[in-house]
């Protein structure tokens, strides 16, 4: 008997009274076992943790406890079988990647009419070349070739990206229509990532070519949003975007609203949630809201040939310390914000709240495998965040096609096992392995199979922070269900609303 190499013990502090004291350890915390290969997660007693550690040490352990640990996949009897289970997950993942949708982002120009202070395209958005008709056709023509190089047979889908792709100018209307029509004619689904200020004017065109989804950004209530997402002359944009969202959703287009949060806006989220609820956005079938964080982008200016000192100093963490803590505190105190954003930074929400299996994260970022961006200079990029920085281009689509396999292939194949430091790490399946590939490549001097590494303790802390948030919610729902009189089973929607789940019975 041995402990599975992918078994992780998390230590979580829960509010007093959440659980029977028998589950608390000496420090008053509860232990949670998780194994992303078996998919299990369980709250365990100190005796069960001790039993696991005795198995790890090679001791004989009580049969009943071990049977439970074995049944949930935390211990195993045959390391070869355990390795085979892990290998099947890795192989299955790459098989799925080969058949997964592949996103092709078209950037007709980098120009944008807003001046958001945190924009990662920055100075690129004031003046830009434009994709002409020939370039747009050339980009479409390279799609099969790129998919072939990625051994991907999934459905391509097109994303209008910028700059701002839906500027209300003759050029942008023409370019957007050519891309939408080109997608429609080829049977490719199409989406747009837009600032949303002219979305209402574009809705008829989007509908004409079957666009089913757009993404816009709102950073909070008008008093917050209009301090950052403003026109170049400083004029506000909130109500224009609000109108665009309403018009698009009313027309049947799905609208994803990204809410970028930073230290200045985190306390505005409760008011914004009240606004979104009053608008009917939170429960709207065509609207989804989610959060991101504003971030630093100095890594974009670094390449492997820069001196090591520069690489180390410019490739760094993005988000000021404390923001994540402040965000979780705010969400914990404001259930409406949770309903609005359903934050899931550790990707465990469905597993904890719904009893789903825990999903392993084998490759932290999808940019390596299934995203390509075409820019108006004729260049191809793997990561949309690097567009317009020629040092990060991985090929050209105009005037000729080229694709740098030597750069792209190691990026595409990078996963938890190709980075040596990650291979033996037991939290790798909660991390995806090695952090941002571009940062690792730049910081290391050109090797994708290195870490730009979140510390293991930080990965653990991230999961424990989200568990501390989600577990009381999950346990409360379970308790409410257990207390309900028999015969009150309702529809799934009703049961979800009252917080009871069939699996709890």
């Amino acid at each position: 008997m041995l402990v599975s190499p992918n078994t992780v013990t998390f230590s979580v502090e829960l509010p007093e009274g959440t659980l029977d004291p028998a589950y608390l350890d000496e420090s008053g915390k509860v232990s949670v076992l998780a194994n992303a290969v078996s998919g299990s997660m369980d709250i365990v007693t100190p005796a069960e943790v001790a039993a696991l550690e005795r198995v790890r040490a090679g001791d004989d352990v009580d049969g009943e406890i071990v049977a439970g640990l074995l049944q949930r996949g935390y211990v195993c009897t045959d390391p070869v079988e355990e390795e085979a289970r892990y290998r099947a997950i890795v192989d299955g993942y790459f098989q799925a990647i080969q058949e997964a949708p592949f996103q092709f982002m078209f950037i007709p120009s980098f120009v944008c009419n807003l001046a958001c202070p945190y924009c990662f395209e920055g100075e690129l958005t004031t003046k830009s070349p434009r994709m002409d008709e020939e370039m747009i056709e050339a980009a479409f023509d390279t799609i099969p070739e790129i998919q072939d190089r990625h051994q991907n047979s999934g459905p391509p889908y097109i994303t209008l990206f910028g700059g701002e792709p839906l500027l209300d100018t003759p050029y942008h209307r023409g370019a957007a229509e050519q891309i939408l029509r080109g997608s429609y004619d080829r049977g490719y689904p199409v989406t747009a990532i837009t600032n949303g200020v002219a979305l209402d004017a574009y809705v008829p065109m989007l509908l004409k070519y079957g666009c089913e989804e757009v993404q816009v950004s709102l950073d909070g209530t008008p008093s917050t949003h209009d301090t950052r997402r403003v026109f170049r002359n400083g004029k506000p944009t909130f109500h224009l975007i609000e109108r665009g969202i309403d018009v698009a959703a009313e027309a049947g287009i799905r609208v994803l609203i990204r809410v970028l949060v930073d230290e200045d806006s985190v306390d505005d989220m409760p008011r914004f949630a009240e606004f979104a609820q009053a608008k009917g956005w939170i429960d709207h079938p065509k609207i989804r809201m989610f959060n991101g964080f504003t971030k630093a982008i100095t890594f974009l200016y670094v390449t492997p040939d820069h001196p090591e000192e520069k690489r180390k100093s410019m490739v760094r963490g993005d988000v000021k310390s404390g923001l994540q803590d402040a965000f979780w505190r705010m969400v914990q105190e404001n259930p409406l914000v949770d309903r609005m954003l359903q934050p899931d930074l550790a990707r465990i929400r469905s597993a904890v709240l719904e009893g789903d299996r825990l999903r392993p994260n084998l490759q932290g970022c999808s940019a390596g495998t299934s995203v390509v961006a075409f820019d108006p200079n004729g260049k191809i990029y793997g990561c949309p965040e690097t567009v317009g920085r020629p040092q990060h281009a991985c090929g050209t689509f105009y005037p000729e096609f080229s694709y740098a396999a030597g750069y792209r292939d190691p990026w595409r194949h990078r996963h938890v096992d190709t980075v040596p430091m990650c291979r033996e790490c037991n939290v790798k399946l909660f991390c995806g392995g090695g952090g941002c590939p571009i940062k690792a490549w730049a910081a290391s001097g050109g090797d994708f199979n290195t870490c730009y590494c979140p510390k293991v303790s930080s990965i653990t802390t991230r999961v424990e922070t989200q568990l501390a948030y989600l577990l009381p919610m999950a346990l409360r729902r379970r308790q409410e269900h257990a207390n309900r009189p028999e015969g009150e089973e309702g529809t799934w929607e009703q049961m979800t609303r009252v917080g009871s789940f069939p699996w709890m019975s």
Partner: protein
Amino acid sequence: MIAISMIENAEVSEKQTDCCTAMRGRKNLDVVTSIMANDPDGCD
């Protein structure tokens, strides 16, 4: 032992795939990893 995940007969809500999932997932992940990357010297 209280089972939290991988519950037999769990009725998991069907997640509608977003076309922008790739972009969104990547962004969220970048943020998470970046928060933790204050020490670029590597793993513990």
